[in-house]
């Protein structure tokens, strides 16, 4: 989602970016390994810093994402926070009204991907970044970014197939258990 604000006329350009990007930035924080509350803390820090700036940067969205990323990486280094993060169980996404078990499993699989892969996926899908932009942000080549994205999606697909296979297995075992014995049939 692209934010269009007349940055120099509107002193509160930060608020427009906040409205457009807050949820996506929190999701990005989760992808970087933060708990929901921690991602909110980093979001607050980032916007506090943005509001101190006398002028809006040229690309406020990119500046915002980069600033958020730097702060998030510093934030997650604390050992105590790392321990408390283990207790985090809040979902990354809003609960959909017609959410299927497969979709819920897919969300879980995304959460369990390696950080570098899920980071690229979040930037590409929910922040609408191109591979060039992602490469610039992470200091990697666009090809590497594209590779991480492909591997990540592939892993999700394979894991979901595994989940579906296990579920089919369980269902067939349950069906067999309820089936009448051969002699009586």
């Amino acid at each position, binding site marked *: 989602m692209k934010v269009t604000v007349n940055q120099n006329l509107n002193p509160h350009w930060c608020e427009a970016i906040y409205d457009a990007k*807050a*949820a996506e930035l929190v999701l990005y924080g989760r992808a970087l390994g933060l708990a929901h509350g921690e991602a909110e803390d980093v979001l607050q820090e980032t916007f506090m810093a943005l509001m101190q700036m006398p002028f809006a940067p040229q690309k406020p969205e990119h500046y915002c994402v980069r600033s958020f990323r730097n702060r998030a990486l510093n934030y997650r280094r604390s050992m105590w926070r790392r321990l408390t993060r283990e207790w985090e169980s809040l979902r990354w996404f809003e609960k959909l009204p017609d959410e299927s078990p497969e979709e819920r499993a897919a969300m879980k699989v995304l959460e369990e991907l390696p950080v570098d892969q899920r980071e690229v996926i979040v930037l590409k899908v929910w922040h609408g970044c191109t591979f060039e932009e992602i490469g610039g942000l992470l200091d990697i080549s666009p090809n590497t970014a594209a590779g991480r994205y492909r591997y990540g999606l592939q892993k999700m697909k394979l894991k979901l197939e595994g989940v579906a296979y296990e579920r089919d297995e369980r269902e067939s075992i349950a069906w067999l258990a309820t089936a009448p014995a051969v002699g009586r049939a």
Partner: protein
Amino acid sequence: MNENQLRGWRPRRPSAGLKARIFSGQGTAMSPALPATRWNWHPFAPAMACMFFAVMVFHFNGGGSWRDSRPALYADFSSGSNTVTFSDRAQEVENHLAGVTFDWTNGSVLKSSMRSHFGFGPSTNLSN
């Protein structure tokens, strides 16, 4: 699993109060919305550090004057080891060489049958 399917998932929103916390101060000035009651201790940090160091160095002894007290903290930067040593006043007498007398080497109480070849008895008294 494709990109369009993923786009259908809406990221979880931050809590409602967060926006208010961030932008509450912007109506008056573009300053961060810090809590008004928060006491800022940062300017006092150097003074508190000096005070802590002074307490460590001037070890008060039972309410006596600070002139009588001797440093309990020694810093040795000369030997390249850059060590800081705390001295325990309770053990000061035992650790002071001048206060130690090796009685068994004292000639007046020597029980050994061996005599000194140098004409004087062994008297390693370091109290002087």
